[in-house]
């Protein structure tokens, strides 16, 4: 398996000094291409900080982060934006859609920043929305849709540009049971289509869906196991 993500001895310290908080304490982690990983931990365990590192949304205080073997931990702001655009599809707990834009426009957004032409953009965005079952909702704005539908729009946005990594931060945290099932099914399908999926969650029920489970606590990795209960089915 080829290395996709490699974190080496990463620390993240907030408020350096007497009251410093070590959100990540010498964490090292490798994730290969095509893996399905769940990172589980209690609130305050450092899992969100880890997710921000993995998603190039934040820079480590020390240590290195290699993506495709390239050091991305000390890139400029614009270079990191470019990496996020090309390499990572985000699925957030709060959906993070832009309220003034329609579903289609929201999905098109990363393609605009990549410089994809109007026609191609429309094609990719519609295809992505169709694949999450929202072909009929393209012109709806986020506030005209249910939570589950909004999260599906967010997933469509994450996959429209076909990034190698899908990074999902508590993707079902704001959803009811039915929607949760729906979203998990879609995420699993995306894994089966060949994407690397990383889910960050505090919910063991969600984590148990993944093939590999990493447990994090107090900014350190406590365990890293292959899920014995994993069922390779959708």
């Amino acid at each position: 398996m080829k290395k996709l993500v490699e974190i080496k001895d990463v620390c993240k310290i907030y408020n350096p000094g007497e009251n410093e908080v070590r959100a990540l304490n010498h964490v090292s982690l490798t994730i290969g291409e095509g893996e399905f990983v769940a990172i589980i931990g209690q609130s305050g365990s450092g899992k969100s900080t880890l997710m921000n590192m993995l998603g190039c949304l934040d820079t480590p205080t020390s240590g290195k982060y290699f993506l495709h073997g390239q050091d991305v931990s000390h890139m400029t702001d614009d270079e990191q934006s470019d990496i996020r655009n090309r390499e990572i599809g985000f699925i957030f707990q709060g959906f993070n859609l832009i309220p003034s834009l329609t579903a289609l426009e929201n999905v098109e957004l990363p393609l605009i920043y990549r410089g994809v032409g109007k026609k191609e953009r429309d094609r990719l965005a519609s295809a992505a929305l169709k694949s999450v079952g929202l072909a009929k909702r393209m012109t709806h704005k986020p506030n005209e849709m249910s939570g589950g539908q909004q999260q599906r729009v967010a997933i469509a946005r994450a996959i429209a540009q076909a990034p190698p990594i899908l990074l999902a931060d508590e993707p079902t945290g704001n959803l009811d049971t039915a929607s949760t099932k729906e979203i998990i099914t879609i995420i699993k399908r995306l894994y089966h289509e060949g994407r690397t999926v990383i889910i960050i969650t505090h919910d063991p029920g969600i984590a148990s869906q993944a093939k590999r489970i990493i447990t994090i606590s107090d900014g350190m990795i406590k365990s890293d196991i292959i899920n014995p209960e994993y069922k390779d089915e959708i």
Partner: protein
Amino acid sequence: MGKITEYLKSAIKQIIGNGYRTIMTMLGIVIGIAAVIAVVSLGNGMSAYVKNSLNDLAGNYGIISINTAKTAERFTRDDMEKIEEVLPNIKGVSPNLSAYGNVKGRKKTVSTSINGGSPALEYSYSNGIVKGSYFTQQQVDSGSRVCVMLLDDAKELFGTEDAIGFDVDITVWGKTSTYTIVGLRDHMNDMYQFLMAGQDYSAQIEVPYTALGADYDIGTENFEQLVLFDEQDTLAESVERAKDVVANAHNLRGSSALTAQSMADFSDQLDQILGYASKFLILVSVISLIVGGIGVMNIMLVSVTERTREIGIRKSIGASTGAIMTQFLAEAAILTFLGGIVGIILGILAAYVICSAIGFDVIITPTSVVGAAVFSVMIGLFFGIYPARKAATMKPIDALRL
């Protein structure tokens, strides 16, 4: 290039999508620009009005005076002839005798100021003869007792404006002579009425200086002042040349005994005073434009804060600093540009309404319109940069957390 179009599109979408905010932002710029245009137009209208009125009232003349304390020399009739010889294109030269007294008509007696001069005195006012004709050189030479007055004066003295051929008795310093009306001038303009408001009625009578001199014991061979009439654009030069002519004749070259003044000097002074007034008004309106600009900056700042989350989302899915900057700058520029256009239209309308109401000519200079528009876009860009930078350089994680 394609990206820039997209950023512009999303800026326009934001502007339309936030109608209320858009209007509030534009209001400052609109009022600022409208004020600049209206005020500049008002200032120009005022200058033009004051200048035209004064020129109308005073006619275009220059005065050459001799300082009696410095020399015993006086102007003579020969001097007038010499000046007209050297400067054949001027309208004429006249002595400037004056007297004050009463004038009696058939209906009543009023006080009067009497000017004695040559036929060139006709040009001392711009309101021309509308009935009869001005007195002639012949009448001056023969000392005829003829006079010219205003239509208003005839009405006052006789109750009618058809007063040609009527006689009036003019009394000055206890001496009375009878003069025949040969010409009547048109009514005075608004400015004259304005200047004369509240004063007792006084008739304005012009007579040949020879008759005036003979009747009331005023010398008609030597004069202390000569008045020269000419077109406005050549007046200043003609007055200087006339001064040279008389200086040579009386050996007063380089002496300070002779002084010359023309309406042109007065006009220059007036220009300067009106210029200060206009500059002050422009300053006031530019301040309002700057205040408008600060309003735009505030709204942009608020809008950035309000949309921090959106900025975070955009950055997390790959927007570069430049992309966010472009979007916010485009928003600011479009807002101020639209505001500029609305402001120009309102400003021109306001200029028309105000100037027409007061009675000024509506003078809208392209400089003020273009200047105000360019200034508004500059303000938009300038005040747009700070909030745009603030938005664009935010860390995505900080922006998302809010």
